[in-house]
């Protein structure tokens, strides 16, 4: 059944979670994602699912840790200061291989920062901000509809790889209202969560389950020592990287200049591409949908063909680092950054006209 509605990105998070089989939401209020929390408070209990307001973001993520260990599909949502507080236990989730979904509606940083949009948490999302060099799968929607769709994918991938998955939104994507068609997307079958804690007698083999975020410290199965666990986890990260790359290439074929952007600035960039094309300029866009794994290869290929790049990012330049890694010094890379914001209200936003200006400079 498809339902058509007109909702915010923050509400689309809720609808996507609902249709994606999410069973519980644990979260703490923070601007600009309060509508997410409020959506779950309103919609979940009456559907017999769990909504619980936590006492802090540290609590939220540890609630996810516990609920995920029970085999449930669970999520939280936060913005940048709360994201910082979650880092220790996101690392624990990665180590214990507990699937969970974290929606990060980025706001201006650092510190308490602004309470409005930005894209300043790219590195901590893609590299993990906690101890130990783990990996989050990171999905970056570009619209209200895609927010809904990627929410569903996020639960699927989290379960498939038993790994935390981050949906990377921002204050603008969270606030914008667009039309949305809701329905459950089928990504295929998944294995039973036989590893989950149900109470020993409910386990298939009647044996106890023990879940730990320090495998290898005590000589316990399935990883009797630290190196055996690391070997396993490294292999898993490689599999995720190989199998889960997603991006959109928009008018990128044969372009002289390619814009690279995710989230709200990818929309702005698309408009700028259209403006450029209208003027006969050969400009395209690569929009990473997974920002980890990152589409290094396609960017590298384009760079090899002699194309220039323009990163459009509402930060001082973080996605930029990944584009640099991909381009390997083989092409010029421009940046439209947070300092290029425009519009009198709200500390500004990056506008299509400003991007187009830069496009013209580079060509």
């Amino acid at each position, binding site marked *: 059944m498809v339902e058509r509605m007109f909702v915010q990105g923050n509400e689309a998070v809720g609808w996507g979670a609902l249709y994606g089989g999410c069973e*519980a939401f644990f979260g703490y209020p923070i601007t600009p994602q309060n509508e997410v929390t409020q959506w779950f408070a309103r919609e979940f209990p009456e559907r017999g699912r769990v909504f*619980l307001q936590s006492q802090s973001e540290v609590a939220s993520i540890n609630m996810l840790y516990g609920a995920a260990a029970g085999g*449930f599909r669970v999520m939280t949502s936060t913005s940048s200061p709360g994201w910082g507080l979650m880092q220790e236990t996101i690392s*624990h989730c990665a180590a214990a291989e507990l699937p969970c979904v974290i929606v990060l509606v980025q706001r201006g940083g650092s510190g308490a920062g602004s309470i409005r949009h930005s894209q300043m948490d790219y590195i901590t999302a893609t590299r993990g901000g906690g101890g130990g060099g783990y990996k989050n799968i990171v999905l970056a929607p570009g619209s209200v509809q895609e927010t809904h769709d990627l929410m569903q994918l996020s639960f699927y991938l989290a379960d498939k790889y038993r790994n935390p998955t981050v949906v990377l939104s921002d204050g603008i994507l969270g606030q914008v209202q667009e039309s949305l068609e809701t329905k459950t997307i089928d990504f295929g079958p998944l294995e039973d969560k036989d590893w989950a804690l149900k*109470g020993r007698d409910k386990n298939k083999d009647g044996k106890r*389950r023990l879940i730990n975020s320090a495998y290898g410290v005590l000589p*316990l199965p399935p990883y009797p020592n630290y190196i055996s666990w690391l070997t396993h986890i490294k292999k898993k990260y490689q599999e995720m990287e190989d199998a889960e790359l997603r991006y959109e290439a928009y008018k990128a074929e044969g372009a002289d200049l390619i814009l690279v952007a995710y989230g709200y600035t990818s929309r702005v960039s698309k408009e700028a591409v259209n403006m450029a094309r209208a003027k006969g300029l050969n400009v395209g866009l690569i929009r990473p949908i997974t920002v980890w794994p990152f589409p290094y290869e396609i960017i590298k290929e384009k760079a090899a063909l002699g194309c220039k790049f323009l990163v459009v990012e509402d930060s001082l330049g973080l996605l930029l680092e990944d584009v640099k890694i991909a381009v390997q010094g083989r092409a010029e890379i421009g940046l439209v950054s947070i300092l290029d914001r425009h519009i009198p209200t709200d500390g500004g936003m990056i506008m299509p006209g400003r991007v187009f200006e830069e496009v013209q400079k580079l060509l």
Partner: protein
Amino acid sequence: MAKKMVTGNPAIWIDPPGAAMYCPGCQHPVVHRVIADVIEEMGIDGEVICMLGVGCHAFVQVAWNIDMLSCAHGRALDSGTALKRLKPEAIVFTVQGDGDCIAIGAGAFVAAMTRAEKITTIMYNNTNYGTTGGQLAPTTLLGQKTTTTPRGRDASVEGYPAHTAELAATFRGTVYSARGSVHTPANYQRTKKYIKTAFQKQIDGAGYSFVEVLVACPPNWHLPPVECLDRIENELIVEFPLGEFKNEDKII
């Protein structure tokens, strides 16, 4: 004449030599046994789910034959809360050290009691951070020397020993709070009764239940094991009286 075993390894024990990881005279494994006894007697070993904190108690993961989750330091109550909300039929309990519960875990502790979570906590109070080498805990006695209070705990610097069981009793969401010890056979039995009652409160859906247990930590008390028992008798229970602080059938 035939022989029947009276005291051996609890049936829910996978690996009793796990106790080999404890220092000579450590009373953690004694409390592990008490809990195992209770779980066995209540016949709930197939239904309990244990949330481990971080501390010496967590070595019990090699031992109990029940489902267990090793949680982030101080956060077992958050994780347990979530699991219980999703599995109200499970019997969820946290085991935590004193530092885990009332230092780094105080936020989770206060919140769980405020929300009146239907779960149970057993806190091992050894008046220090054993695992990391014997530092000050909120429960450290005045004057007690630890590696971070080499001159003894000084009230004007580190404040006063935290009374966790009494604190728990002040919360409306708490229906049961007690403090036991295992420094004599009689107290062993009393503690067993406290823990059983605490589980029963959860099974009855009454509210949050809490049991603190005093345990000896010979290396960090710098005392031979048997003298640790005397310290419990002569010093600890003066500061931390034993008994039930709250026992209600429902939240009132």
